[in-house]
C-alpha cells in the first residue's frame, strides 16, 4: 500500500516535472535568444555574491568594491588614512596629461572612446561581437594608439597604467555594467570562469581556493580578500610595487605565488578572466585607482 502510494506520488511528480519542461520550453524560446546567456550569467552572479553577503554579513554589499578593506577592519582604517593623501594622485595627473596630448596625426584618445573617454570605465571589459573577443580598457587604449600610428605601451605599469588610472578616476561611482550578448561572449565568460576554478601551479591552488574558500583567513600575514569586487579598484598603487600597476600585473603575481607560470598581460586567458571577474562584480561601483598593501 505504502509503496503504491509512493510510486503514485513519484509518477505525479514526474508528470509535473515533464509538464514544467514542456511548458518552459516554448516560454523560454519566446524570449530574445540573446538573453539566454545573460540570464544564465545573472544567476551565477547572484549565487556568487550571495556567498559573500552570507559569509561577511556585517559588510554592506556596496562596500565589497573596497576589496580586502571591506572585510579587514584593522587594515581598513589605515587604508582610509592613506586614501586621504592618495599615493596614486600623481599617476592620475600624469595620466590626464598623457590622455590629452594629441597623437602625431592630430587625433587623440578622446576620438577613440565613447563620451570622449570620460566616465566610461564601468563599460570595460566588454565583448566585441565583431572581433569576437574581450576588449579590456588597457587593450582599447593601445589599439587607439596603434590605429593612430603610435607605438603600443607596456601593459603592466608606466604610462598605460597612468592613463587607465585617469580614465578610472573620471568614472568613480559609476556602476559596472558589463553584458554577455551572445554565445561567443558566453564562451569567453566560461573560459574565464574555468580559469578561476582550476587548480594551478606546484602548490596546486585555484583562485577560488583563496578568494572564496579561505577568504578572510590568514595566510602568514596576508588575508586573501573576497572574490567579489576584486577588479573594481584597478589600477592600484601597491606599496609592495612602490608604483601603480594594472590588474593583469596582479594576476601574474597571484599565479607566481602558487608557482605557476604567469600568462602575458592582455593575453586572451587573462582578458577572459577579467571578463568573468568583472561580471561577478556587476552592480558595484568603480573605485579606481586605489591603494593597496
Amino acid at each position, binding site marked *: 500500500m505504502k509503496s503504491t502510494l509512493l510510486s503514485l506520488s513519484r509518477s505525479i511528480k514526474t508528470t509535473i516535472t515533464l509538464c514544467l519542461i514542456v511548458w518552459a520550453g516554448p516560454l523560454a524560446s519566446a524570449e530574445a535568444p540573446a538573453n539566454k546567456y545573460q540570464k544564465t550569467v545573472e544567476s551565477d552572479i547572484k549565487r556568487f555574491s550571495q556567498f559573500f553577503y552570507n559569509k561577511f554579513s556585517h559588510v554592506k554589499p556596496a562596500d565589497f568594491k573596497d576589496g580586502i578593506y571591506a572585510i579587514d577592519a584593522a587594515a581598513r582604517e589605515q587604508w582610509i588614512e592613506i586614501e586621504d593623501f592618495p599615493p596614486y594622485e600623481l599617476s592620475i595627473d600624469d595620466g590626464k596629461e598623457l590622455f590629452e596630448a594629441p597623437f602625431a596625426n592630430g587625433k587623440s584618445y578622446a576620438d577613440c572612446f565613447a563620451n570622449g573617454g570620460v566616465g566610461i570605465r564601468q563599460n570595460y571589459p566588454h565583448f566585441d561581437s565583431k572581433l569576437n573577443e574581450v576588449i579590456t580598457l588597457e587593450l582599447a587604449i593601445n589599439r587607439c594608439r596603434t590605429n593612430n600610428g603610435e607605438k603600443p605601451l607596456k601593459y603592466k605599469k608606466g604610462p598605460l597604467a597612468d592613463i587607465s588610472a585617469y580614465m578610472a578616476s573620471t568614472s568613480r561611482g559609476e556602476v559596472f555594467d558589463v553584458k554577455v550578448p551572445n554565445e561567443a561572449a558566453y564562451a569567453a565568460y566560461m573560459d574565464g570562469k574555468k580559469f578561476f576554478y582550476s587548480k594551478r601551479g*606546484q602548490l596546486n591552488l585555484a583562485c577560488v*581556493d583563496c578568494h572564496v574558500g*579561505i577568504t578572510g*583567513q*590568514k*595566510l*602568514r600575514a596576508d588575508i586573501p580578500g573576497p572574490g567579489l569586487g576584486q577588479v573594481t579598484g584597478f589600477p592600484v598603487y601597491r606599496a609592495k610595487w612602490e608604483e601603480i600597476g594594472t590588474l593583469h600585473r596582479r594576476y601574474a603575481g597571484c599565479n607566481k605565488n602558487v608557482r605557476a607560470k604567469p600568462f602575458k598581460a592582455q593575453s586572451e586567458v587573462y582578458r577572459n578572466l577579467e571578463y568573468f571577474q568583472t561580471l561577478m562584480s556587476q552592480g558595484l561601483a568603480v573605485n579606481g585607482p586605489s591603494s593597496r598593501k
Partner: protein
Amino acid sequence: MKIIKVLLMSACLLAQAAIADTDVQKAQKVKQGQELAFDRKKGNCLACHYVQGGTLMGTAGPPLVAMKARFPKREVLFDQVSDARIKNNKTIMPPFGSHEILSKQEIELVVTWLYTL
C-alpha cells in the same frame, strides 16, 4: 683477564656512544624537519597552520597539535603531507610529495618533527 675487561669496557663505551649518537641524530632530524616546515620556499606550513614555536601563522588549516594521538600510524601522517588529496580530494593543502615540493626524505624529516608536536 685484563684484556677481556678492557675489551668489555670499550664495547660498553662503544654501545653507549652508538645510543648517544642516535639521540643526537634524532634531534638533528627533528631540527631539519622543522626547518623544512618553516622555510617559505619548502614546506611553508605556517602559511596555513598554527604550530607551537612558530610566528606569523595562518588560520587556513587546523592547528598542528597532538600528532601522535591523531596519527598513530606513521604512513598515514606521511600520506597527509605527501598528498592530502588521498584523504580529502577537495583539500587546499598542497600535495608536497606528488608535486615534488618536498622529496621523500624531506617528508620523512617533516614527519619526524611533526611527531614532536
